[in-house]
């Protein structure tokens, strides 16, 4: 399957017309990450959006004195890496493939230019990003509640 087909089938393109989805294709590149590969590191320039097609990615944070902790896993259908949304964006976590992983890598500069130039595309993409961020926020809240501690 080529980039255009994978993009159309990805939940990121849900709600986009074929025409809008097609405009994203030139800035997307299918990339494969072997198990253990570091996709990006905390502090690096945030220059891409990753649409995970298959596999699983761990978001990790190094905590001095406690070592590296896994914060969350992302898998097929998820978005990885949104720090490019902010000026001078830098990755705030490490991302590592815990399984062989395929992702459509969208160049952040090209994507931002597209979204700025096309209000309909910008709105549709923003909606999807907000929905996914909200879902992940809800899950982070549940994680933070530490619900299994002291359960009967």
């Amino acid at each position, binding site marked *: 399957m080529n980039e255009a087909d994978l993009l159309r089938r990805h939940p990121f393109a849900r709600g986009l017309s074929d025409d809008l989805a097609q405009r994203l294709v030139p800035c997307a590149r299918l990339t494969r990450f072997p198990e253990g590969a570091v996709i990006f590191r905390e502090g690096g320039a945030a220059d891409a959006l990753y649409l995970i097609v298959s596999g699983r990615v761990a978001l990790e944070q190094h905590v001095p004195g406690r070592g590296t*902790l896994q914060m*969350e896993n992302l*898998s097929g259908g998820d978005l990885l890496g949104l720090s490019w949304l902010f000026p001078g964006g830098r990755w705030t976590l490490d991302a590592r493939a815990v399984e062989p992983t395929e992702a459509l890598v969208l160049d952040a500069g090209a994507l931002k230019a597209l979204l700025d130039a096309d209000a309909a595309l910008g709105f549709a993409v923003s909606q999807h990003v907000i929905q996914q961020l909200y879902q992940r926020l809800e899950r982070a809240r549940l*994680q933070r509640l530490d619900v299994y501690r002291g*359960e*009967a």
Partner: protein
Amino acid sequence: MLSTRRESHDTVTLTLDAASRRPFQPGQFNMLYAFGVGEAAISMSGDPASPSTAVHTVRAVGAVTEAICRLKRGGVVGVRGPFGTPWPTGEAAGQDLVIVAGGVGLAPLRPVVYHALARRSDYRRVFLLVGARTPEDLLFRRELERWQARKDLTVLVTVDRAPAGWKGRVGVAPALLDAVDLSAGGAVAFVCGPEVMMRFCVRELGRRGFPDDRIHLSMERNMKCAVGFCGHCQYGPSFICKDGPVLRYDRIRSLFWRREV
């Protein structure tokens, strides 16, 4: 007590002899009495088809459960039961079965898995989604691995937090529903875990169009008499010991979201 097996730093599985065994259905519980300390409601976690032993998994969270967890082979506990409503395994026949377990909530759902595997052709797809606090807190680890190797059962396991070397999933149990294709319709969900985790599961199932009357929850309240007299476990118009612990979500929806019920 025939044997004890430590599942994690605070959880133990106890195997009691046949004298303690009464026929039970998945989801029911016994009242176990630690002599001189007190009594606690403990779910059966063993195979309902096994006639020779009674198996319970206990987490040490108070005086009674701590005393029960300290017992060794040859120790004695008092047993009353079984009590409570079972998981409606018959209602799920012919459909997909989605089992979601959080923490020690896997214990009352393990008999469902045994039951479903023994009558595998009664069900379409069977999913077991398991969440725990850390990898060390996972119950029945070897059994989960054996089940993961089976082709007729999808087992997904996640933990809330893990070190870098953990190869499994990290995230909350309700997020595992993302990995389950429920679009075929005709599914029943059995959910057991901390109440807040069950609230998240109910929401996630609802977002996927899962009907409320296909969701069954195992509720927990402080039980004393276990036969609906004392009122300790009252939940609105119901007593969890007698009318539950397994309750259909649409029947408790108005209470489920109300605080301090």
